[in-house]
């Protein structure tokens, strides 16, 4: 009995101050992480919708939620890399739209399923290379070049498909399950890719040189970094990921739709990246931030549907979120640089 009292006294006595200090320190370390704010927002939104409507956390809805979030994550991976090295890809949503048609044409022409999928992915890689060629080799701003290639790909897709939706070939159903038609496959791909690219960005030469290229182009070049190669590579990664998402969504919805993709997935991905702390001017950004940003966008979209509120005001929230995120990023980095958050 006396033991218990003593322990109890101990817990609320002197060590309690230590505990508060410990919590305070933990909070400070947490706040120093660039992703802290967006993590709190994502968790709070999730909790809010979960409490408001119990069906939000039902398995059926979690599957839908994951399928909403996964494409944003995967495209955001590419956009984060590009934004960090000082570029952007506006065309990725049209690669997304074209790739499944490409696969369909190939299979129609008698190409076996796996090579057809591979060729569709290579199309994404090639489109990314072309974006790199225009941006790096011809020296045009990527905001313009990818606008152009986006239209180009869109037109090619419409012309070749006669703007008619098709159903993914039944012979591809097996591969489709791996890629997207199994409930959780998209989110598994998304998280696995994100984890890989998180390591690429933070722990490899490629990631370091990507940051250097966007942080100080001249300085990076001075150090002998082939900045053109870095940009080409990141355009190609983005193109490849765009094609992958296109195939996944086609299998998941069992529909190859000329209206799929477009600007929306790209805008969502860039929004996710920015509210996750990626700088539009290059030099900084994180994969974890993009993941959390994607979750925020997905949870908002899905949550509004589940609790039955009109989705019309959503863009207001997204717009506000982007602006607040940008303002917060600028202010926070100012705080950090002035040393007040050491």
């Amino acid at each position, binding site marked *: 009995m006396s033991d218990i009292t003593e322990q109890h006294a101990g817990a609320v006595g002197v060590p309690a101050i230590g505990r508060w200090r410990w919590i305070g320190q933990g909070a400070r370390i947490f706040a120093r992480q660039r992703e802290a704010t967006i993590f709190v927002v994502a968790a709070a939104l999730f909790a809010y919708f979960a409490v408001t409507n119990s069906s939000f956390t039902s398995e059926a809805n979690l599957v839908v939620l994951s399928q909403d979030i996964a494409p944003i994550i995967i495209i955001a991976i590419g956009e984060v890399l590009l934004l960090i090295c000082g570029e952007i890809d506006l065309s990725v949503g049209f690669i997304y739209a074209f790739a499944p048609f490409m696969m369909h044409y190939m299979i129609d022409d008698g190409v076996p399923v796996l090579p057809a999928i591979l060729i569709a992915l290579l199309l994404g890689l090639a489109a990314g290379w072309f974006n790199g060629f225009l941006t790096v080799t011809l020296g045009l701003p990527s905001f313009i070049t990818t606008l152009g290639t986006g239209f180009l790909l869109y037109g090619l897709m419409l012309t070749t498909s006669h703007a008619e939706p098709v159903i993914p070939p039944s012979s591809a159903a097996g591969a489709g399950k791996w890629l997207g038609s199994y409930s959780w496959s998209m989110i598994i791909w998304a998280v696995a890719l994100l984890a890989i690219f998180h*390591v690429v960005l933070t*722990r*490899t*030469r490629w990631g*370091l*040189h990507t*940051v*250097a290229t966007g*942080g*100080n182009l*001249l*300085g*990076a070049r*001075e*150090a*002998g*970094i082939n900045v053109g190669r870095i940009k080409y590579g990141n355009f190609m990664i983005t193109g490849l990921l765009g094609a992958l998402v296109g195939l996944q969504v086609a299998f998941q919805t069992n529909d190859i739709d000329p209206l799929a993709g477009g600007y929306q997935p790209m805008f969502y991905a860039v929004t996710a990246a920015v509210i996750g702390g990626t700088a539009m001017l290059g*030099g*900084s950004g994180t994969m974890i931030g993009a993941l959390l940003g994607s979750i925020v966008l997905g949870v908002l979209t899905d949550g509004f549907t589940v609790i039955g509120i009109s989705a019309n005001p959503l863009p207001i929230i997204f717009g506000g979120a982007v602006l607040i995120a940008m303002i917060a990023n600028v202010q926070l980095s100012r705080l*950090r*640089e002035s*040393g007040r958050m050491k």
Partner: protein
Amino acid sequence: MTSAAPATQAGTDVLRTDHISKRYGAVTALLDVNLRLARGEVLGLIGDNGAGKSTLLKILCGFQAPDAGRIVLNGQDVALSSVDHARSLGIEAVYQDLALINQLSVYHNMFLNRERIRWPLLSNRTMKRLARQYLDDMGVNIPSVEVPVASLSGGQRQAIAVARSVFTQAKILLLDEPLAAMGAKEAALILDLIRDLKGRGDVSIIVIAHNYGQVLEICDRVNLLQHGMIMLDKPSRETSVQELNDIVVEEYRRALESRQRST
């Protein structure tokens, strides 16, 4: 006025220019410049704006070719075709902190494009340790090698830029106004660093600066450029801030008088 270094001295000179001239249209930027830099020496290059300091620096770092004359590196004629070429020969210009990547940590900057790798990952721990050790050896005091260089002061960034050049095998450093826009404490950091490098004996340095006091303090020898010519070449201990000032002021007075006469 000094002319070309005597042949007997050529052996100790790590870098020499023989009768270098450079014109930009009608303007003569450099005229018959014979500069020599001994191994392990710190040479101060002073002179008013437009005297030709920057032009000389650009020629030495391979950015521009001279119109006439030759550059002799370790006793051999070299035609520096580019900045990269000069750098591969161990000559490197350090322009303030412009080449650093603000967003990257100190140690990543130190190892930029020469990273230690344990494929496929960066050996961050090794790079941190080596950078820490190296900066400590050089007496560069920074709180941590893990902070982004953006959080450091101008002097610290400059010190890291200089340290990085030496770290990457530069043997001849060309420091362009390393002390410009720096407070006393900051400047002391760089002066200490230059002194440390001098102590090593294998790095030779040309410092362009405006503050004669600081130049005389750290340089073994000073060259005063005027109108693209070396007007004075003396060991630091044989000259003074007074003498250097007098030459420049005298020149200014003469120019003023000739202008008054012509009007």
